[in-house]
C-alpha cells in the first residue's frame, strides 16, 4: 500500500486527461481521436479510483466499472461509424467531415 497524498493521484489523472485532450484537439485521424477519448475516459476512471481509495469506499471502483462499460459501448459505435465513414470517403481525415457548417 502506498502513502502518497491523494492529490498526487488526482494530478496523475489530470495529466493523463489533458494528454487525451491534446490528442483529440491535434490529431486529424479519427482513430487517434477515438484513442484520445479513451485516454480521457480512462483518466477520469483513474480519478474515481483515487477518490474511492481516499474514502475507503467501493463506490469509486464501481464508477470506474461503469466508465469502462461506457467506454466499450462508445468505442464500438465509434469504430462502426469510422468503418462506414472510411468505406464512403476512403480517408480517415476528420477535417473532411466539415460539409455541415455555417
Amino acid at each position, binding site marked *: 500500500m502506498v502513502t502518497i497524498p491523494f492529490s498526487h493521484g488526482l494530478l496523475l489523472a489530470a495529466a493523463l486527461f489533458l494528454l487525451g485532450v491534446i490528442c483529440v484537439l491535434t490529431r486529424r485521424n479519427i*482513430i487517434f481521436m477515438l484513442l484520445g477519448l479513451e485516454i480521457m475516459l480512462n483518466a477520469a476512471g483513474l480519478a474515481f479510483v483515487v477518490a474511492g481509495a481516499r474514502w475507503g469506499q467501493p463506490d469509486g471502483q464501481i464508477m470506474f466499472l461503469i466508465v469502462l462499460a461506457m467506454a466499450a459501448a462508445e468505442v464500438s459505435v465509434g469504430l462502426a461509424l469510422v468503418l462506414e465513414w472510411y468505406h464512403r470517403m476512403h480517408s480517415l481525415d476528420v477535417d473532411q467531415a466539415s460539409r455541415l457548417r455555417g
Partner: protein
Amino acid sequence: MNTLFYLAAAVAILATLLVITRAHAVHALLYLIVSLLAAALAFFLLGAPFAAALEVIVYAGAIMVLFVFVVMMLNLGTHSVRGERQWLRPAAWVGPGLLAAVLLAELVYVLGGWSAPATTPAAIGPREVGLALFGPYVLAVELASVMLLAGLVGAYHLARPQKEAEGEA
C-alpha cells in the same frame, strides 16, 4: 511502495505522450497498452485490485483489441503514415498544448492546495466491490446492460455490410 507508484505514474504519462505523437496507429496502440498496464499497477497500489484486473482484462484486453482489429481491417498502408506525418507539424501542437497547459495549471493550483489526509487506505477487494455492485448499485448494473445493448444495436446497424440500394425505395 511509494516509489513504485511514482514510477508507474511516470511510465503512464510517458507512454501516453508517445501514444499521442505516433504516426503509426499500431505503434500508438501498443504504447497505449503500456500506459494502461501502468495505470493498472497504480490501481493496485491504491488498493483497488479489482479495478486493476478489469483495466488489464477489459481495457488493455478487449477494447484495445477492438482498435487493433479495426486498424487491421482498414489496412492503412505507409501512405497513411506519410499523410499523418504531414498533419503532425509542430505548429499543430501549439494551440492544444497551450490550452492543455492552462487547464493543467488550473488543476495543479486547485489540487495542490487540496489537503486530504494521506492515510494508508485499506485495500478494497473484489468482494466488497461485488457486494456493493449487486447491493445498492444493482440498478446501475441493469442499466449498464441497456447501455451496452444500445452500443450493440448501434454498432450492428452502422457497420452492417451495405447494399447498394440502401435507403432507396
